[in-house]
């Protein structure tokens, strides 16, 4: 393999048969190029979906109630179901062992918020301190809500990063007073970012107790959110989470006398099960792309193999001459094989770099909600390079063996 003389011989052959080499290279380069682009987009979709999805904690269970759509036990449809603090506390006690983080929520849409002459309309959400972890929020400044904020119904607020950008473009918001709905002053204590993006960062968090007071909600709550304790086994965690979801669902249906098939009135969502579905979707997408890519490569290999066969046919006489001059069969095999590996590897690398280059170039323009950072990582590149070398060997092997079996006497007669 590292015989310099043989490499010189191969380079000479290649450089003197440019068109043939070019045609051979083209099919391989194209195959690898397509594979790289496919894999890039597959990872882009994977990243995109993951980002979309991981905006919130993946082990979240969310509970909400609306209006009944079906009659049950003599009750009419159209009843509004209202959860209260006591529902929240009952669930907390019942599922204490499974719960990791918990919060009840009370929100208003389109709350007017003013800071000096700036003004905007945002969602205002009453929450408990655990909301930070349930939302996967990270603080960029200050602190999140604390238990004492809730206990004392303090008028403090945590801004989403988008709000900070809107209302405090050049000033430090911590300690500043904002005016909510034109009548209540809140002190800003922190700013958070949320992987869910600007929509999720346009929310103002205030203590739950404060929200219930200022919006005259009494004991009412809109939603309850939990995260379940994760175990090391993903499937076990999924099962546990699903069981808890069904159990909570049943509790609420019993309490509010809701028909078992009324999916609108009581909703309990379990993100972990969704997560499992999405991860398996991502796996499927990746497998499909690999399948297409490998198929393309196989087509390329067959192409190279064909061209090498033609090459051997075309070089029958030359191979005969070489054998008459004393070339060993192994030397003939290596000559053809090395040429084929060299051509596939080199043109494959060109395809690889072209593919990676194009991905880098178009990546910024290809960002959508479901495609994010479509690039090929190092492992994938190495994998494709290994595929290339294996492909080159395969593509060269049959023609090489045929070349080695050429009888010099017949080859020399071949006019």
């Amino acid at each position: 393999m590292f015989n310099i003389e043989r490499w010189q011989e191969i380079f000479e052959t290649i450089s003197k048969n440019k068109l043939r080499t070019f045609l051979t290279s083209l099919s391989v380069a194209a195959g690898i190029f397509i594979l790289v682009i496919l894999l890039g987009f597959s990872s882009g979709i994977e990243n995109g979906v993951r980002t979309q999805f991981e905006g919130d904690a993946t082990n979240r269970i969310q509970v909400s109630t609306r209006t009944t759509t079906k009659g049950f036990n003599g009750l009419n449809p159209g009843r509004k179901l209202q959860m209260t603090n006591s529902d929240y506390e009952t669930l907390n006690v019942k599922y204490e062992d499974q719960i990791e983080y918990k919060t009840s929520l009370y929100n208003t849409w389109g709350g007017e918020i003013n800071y000096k002459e700036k003004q905007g309309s945002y969602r205002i959400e009453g929450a408990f301190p655990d909301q930070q972890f349930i939302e996967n929020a990270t603080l960029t400044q200050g602190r999140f809500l604390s238990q004492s904020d809730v206990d004392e119904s303090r008028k403090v607020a945590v801004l989403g990063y988008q709000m900070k950008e809107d209302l405090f473009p050049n000033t430090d918001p911590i300690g500043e007073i904002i005016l909510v709905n034109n009548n209540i002053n809140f002190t800003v204590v922190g700013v958070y970012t949320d992987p869910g993006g600007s929509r999720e960062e346009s929310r103002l968090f205030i203590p739950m107790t404060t929200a219930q007071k200022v919006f005259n909600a009494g004991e009412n709550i809109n939603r309850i959110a939990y995260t379940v304790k994760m175990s090391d086994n993903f499937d076990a965690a999924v099962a546990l989470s699903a069981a808890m979801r069904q159990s909570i669902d049943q509790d609420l249906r019993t309490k509010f006398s809701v028909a078992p098939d009324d999916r609108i009135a009581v909703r309990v969502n379990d993100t972990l099960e969704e997560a499992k579905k999405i991860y398996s979707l991502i796996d499927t997408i990746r497998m499909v792309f690999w399948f297409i890519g490998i198929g393309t490569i196989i087509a390329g290999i067959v192409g190279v193999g064909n061209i090498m066969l033609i090459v051997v046919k075309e070089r029958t006489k030359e191979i005969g001459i070489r054998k008459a001059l004393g070339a060993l069969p192994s030397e003939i095999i290596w000559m053809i094989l090395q040429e084929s590996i060299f051509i596939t590897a080199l043109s494959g690398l060109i395809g690889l770099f072209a593919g990676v280059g194009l991905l880098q170039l178009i990546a910024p323009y290809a960002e959508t909600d479901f495609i994010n950072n479509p690039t090929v990582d190092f492992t994938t590149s190495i994998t494709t390079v290994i595929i290339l070398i294996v492909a080159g060997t395969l593509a060269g092997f049959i023609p090489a063996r045929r070349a080695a079996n050429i009888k010099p006497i017949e080859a020399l007669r071949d006019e």
Partner: protein
Amino acid sequence: MIEITNLQKSYVTGNTSLHVLKGIDFSVKEGELVSIMGSSGSGKSTLLNILGMLDEADQGTYMLDNTPIKNLNEKIAAQYRNKFLGFIFQSFNLINYKTAVDNVALPLYYQKVGRKERDEKAMHYLEKVGLADWANHLPNQLSGGQKQRVAIARALASDPKVLLADEPTGALDTKTSYEVMELIQGINEEGRTILIVTHEPDIAEMTKRVVNLKDGRIIDDRLVNQIKASAHV
């Protein structure tokens, strides 16, 4: 140098078997210049192919430089060809994308001679056949006679025990043929053993011994008074 006894060869095609060589006994001493003559179908090319280890006999023994040539596999045949034999073909058989000097250097490459030494030796033999100025030309830029000279230089490059020439002048006009024969005679004068297959009597007369083949047997084996090709050029 060459000792063959009772050499037999048949070719089987379908149901018919063609007995090409029907028991050849033949020997060549070192330094001889022998021509093998015969009409087409006489078996002369088959004999040369067997001598050249490009083909194998069915029966009989073949000794080359006191080495028995038998049970050849591809690998051993290749090594023996490289070590013992130089080939000159009717159609020259140069590799057409290699320059004259690279063609001459090819047997040396398979002898694992280093590039520098290879090129030096190749140039030496090109000079010997009078083509030093054409070293970097491709075969299609050379005339027929020049191509055959390059082929002769290539056959000499590996310093073989025996040169085997299959109709070396078959594709050349008379004048060029004599020039090539003059070169071959010169090489023989230096002590090299040479076998030439030909069907041209005038070429045969330029060797030192003529062996006549007919229907797979030697019918005549005589020494001749060598005619110097230079007399005709």
